[in-house]
């Protein structure tokens, strides 16, 4: 064997053996919802699973129950922390609260396994400021029926859920009409500011103490138990039995007081979830765990790359598809109306809804977000391509025909260059909208500038929100500037200079 060949062989052996090593280490993905307690539990699970030597990834802050459940079914995550009440009402859609054994059996049929309870019940409760409750003489939820003027601010999930507001209103015959849906974390601020009177709370929320709230007694036992459990795919036992054993250490190990304390650390003291998790594991389970703290600049860089990736791929796809669609629309008026109508309708679908629609098809992460952003980018480009071509003066088009240019020559040499400015303006619009909309991708696990915004809203941390919002705004401005330069490159000077 020659020297080079020997080297190559050596590299090959290294690569293969490295792959063999990776193949032996099971890779496990933990998911968590976009509220702090779920993120902390997700982080605890991640660090615990990693003690077995498995490759563990934590996809944190993935929207709500439906997103997590679809991701679990599709195998994009292997496990996540959930609550029994949520499983019975939201996932199983059982009329009455199911017992944990009924839940176990039902999920087994779906290929999912439910752990023993972790030890605390985080049910929904209603809360209001103590002084207001005292003044009005309210202690129990049934007391609210006598105060129809109270303003309710509920999390959007609570408003929709069968065990949330719809069922609560029925069971207690509540007369209130001023009921607003808002982000859970924003609701606390509304309460503190006095713009709403009653919010839905989780019983382990740190804010109950922090804001001096009274948790109203559920005197008609409306809310089912929300015992914290771990849900995992049944194939995990075969793939990573040590991980399943490791996480079982959490069963009956977390009390409500533990959880409230951990939530308070995150939300009141702004301690990173990874540190809270490792401290908990060290103190209660005597475990040393690795936690990876990522520096601010590294995080900024990761978010920038993630964000640019979403925008660049979706925009490039949109340009490739939308310009030909615009050309077709301009050439054939009947097909054109259909094309413009269709892309117009796509634009009216709310971004969040479109993202959620994509999950059953494409799962979570970048793929559904890119498809959604791609779809949103179509309209401005198609419309501007169409308009740019359509607005070319008739005599110019006729001169090109009379000169003997073929249809494809006309398109390439005359029509597209004349429409270039309009097409570029369309792409610019798409790019700027894209940069903004891509922040929503964080809800389905794409990362990007939406991640600090999401975490910042959750932790009520304006600085963190700015870490996402400012770069996103900066990127939008940068796009704008880039397209101004592109205009100089792609739009003929003959079209840019003004007459006279």
């Amino acid at each position, binding site marked *: 064997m020659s020297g080079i060949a020997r080297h190559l062989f050596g590299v090959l052996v290294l690569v293969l053996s490295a792959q063999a090593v990776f193949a032996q280490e099971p890779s496990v993905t933990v998911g968590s919802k976009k509220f702090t307690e779920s993120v902390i539990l997700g982080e605890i699970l991640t660090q615990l699973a990693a003690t077995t030597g498995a490759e563990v990834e934590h996809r944190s802050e993935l929207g709500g129950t439906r997103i997590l459940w679809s991701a679990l079914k599709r195998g994009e995550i292997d496990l996540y922390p959930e609550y029994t009440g949520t499983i019975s009402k939201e996932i199983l859609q059982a009329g009455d609260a199911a017992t944990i054994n009924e839940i176990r059996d039902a999920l087994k049929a779906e290929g999912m396994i439910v752990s023993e309870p972790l030890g605390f019940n985080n049910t929904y409760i209603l809360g209001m400021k103590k002084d207001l409750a005292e003044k009005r003489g309210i202690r129990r939820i049934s007391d609210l029926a006598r105060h129809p003027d109270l303003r309710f601010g509920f999390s959007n999930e609570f408003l929709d859920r069968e065990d949330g507001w719809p069922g609560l209103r029925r069971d207690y015959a509540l007369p209130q009409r001023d009921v607003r849906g808002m982000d859970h974390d924003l609701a606390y601020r509304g309460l503190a500011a006095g713009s709403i009177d009653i919010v839905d709370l989780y019983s382990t929320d740190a804010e109950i103490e922090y804001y001096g709230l009274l948790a109203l007694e559920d005197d008609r036992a409306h809310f089912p138990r929300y015992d914290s459990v771990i849900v995992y795919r049944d194939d995990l036992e075969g793939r990573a039995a040590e991980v399943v054993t490791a996480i079982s250490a959490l069963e009956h190990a977390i009390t409500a007081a533990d959880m409230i304390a951990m939530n308070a650390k995150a939300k009141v003291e702004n301690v990173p979830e990874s540190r809270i998790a490792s401290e908990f594991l060290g103190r209660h389970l005597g475990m040393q765990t690795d936690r990876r703290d990522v520096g601010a600049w590294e995080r900024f860089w990761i978010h920038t790359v993630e964000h640019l990736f979403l925008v660049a791929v979706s925009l490039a796809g949109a340009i490739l598809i939308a310009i030909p669609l615009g050309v077709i629309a301009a050439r054939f008026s009947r097909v054109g109306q259909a094309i413009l109508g269709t892309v117009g309708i796509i634009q009216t679908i709310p971004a969040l809804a479109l993202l959620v629609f994509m999950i059953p098809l494409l799962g979570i992460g970048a793929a559904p977000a890119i498809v959604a952003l791609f779809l949103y980018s179509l309209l401005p480009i198609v419309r501007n391509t169409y308009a740019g071509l359509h607005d070319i003066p008739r*005599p*110019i088009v*006729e*001169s*090109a*025909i*009379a*000169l*003997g*240019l*073929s249809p494809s*020559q006309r398109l390439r*040499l*005359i029509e597209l*260059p*004349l429409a*270039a400015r309009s097409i570029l303006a369309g792409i610019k619009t798409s790019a700027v909208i894209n940069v903004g909309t891509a922040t929503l991708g964080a809800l389905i696990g794409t990362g990007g500038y939406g991640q600090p915004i999401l975490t910042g809203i959750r932790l009520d941390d304006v600085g963190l929100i700015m870490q996402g919002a400012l770069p996103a705004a900066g990127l939008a401005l940068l796009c704008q500037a880039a397209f101004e330069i592109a205009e100089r490159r792609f*739009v*003929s*000077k*003959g*079209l840019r*200079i*003004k*007459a006279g």
Partner: protein
Amino acid sequence: MLSSPVIELEQISKAFGATQALDRLDLHVEAGQTSVLIGPSGCGKSTLLRVLVGLIEPDGGTATFEGTTITPQSVHALRRRMGYVIQEGGLFPHLTATENVVLMARQLGWPEPKWRSRLGELAELTRLPTDALGRYPIELSGGQRQRVSLMRALMLDPHVLLMDEPLGALDPMIRFELQVELRAIFRRLGKTVLLVTHDLDEAGFFGDFIVLLRNGRIEQRGTLEELVNEPRNEFVRAFVNAQRSTVAPLREDPRP
């Protein structure tokens, strides 16, 4: 002189909605002649040129160009033997004067020395200043634009020039200057020209023959003298009188 007609129209009709733009019109144009189409607005004179260049398909009748029937299939090849100039020039605003003129030649694969030398010839012929060649249409004067437009039409050395009011948008001084130059060019090149105008004076100045149209039909075809002295009907007389009332009596050729 018996030469075969370059353009033959037989029973050509074209309607736009209720308007009959061309009504079973017959017209023969001999090689080397300059024929001027004239008539009131909507008489069909521009439509006739657009039928020839294939921008409009007639409802009925046959149009033949150098022995080939003009159809949507055949017209593409025929266009290279026609030069078409319109009122505003129809120059491509994103291309310089030179790029406009040589566009088609380059598409046909002419080597650069060949199109450059042809460009030079045409600039000389149309007396376009050299520095105007690098400018965009928006940077050119109206007269320069029409010179460039004529250069573009002549680039492939077509047999026929079809000109739809080529001087219609120019102010009178430049228009007069260009009329003189244009006629000199026509004579020098010996091309067959079909020119549309609404100005009888201009028609008489350019045309070997004048074709007076109304409602898509030919009212009279002849020299200016024939139209003036032997009008075939009342419309011809009225049209000639209306146009000539402010103009001095017919001159042979008072211009240099």
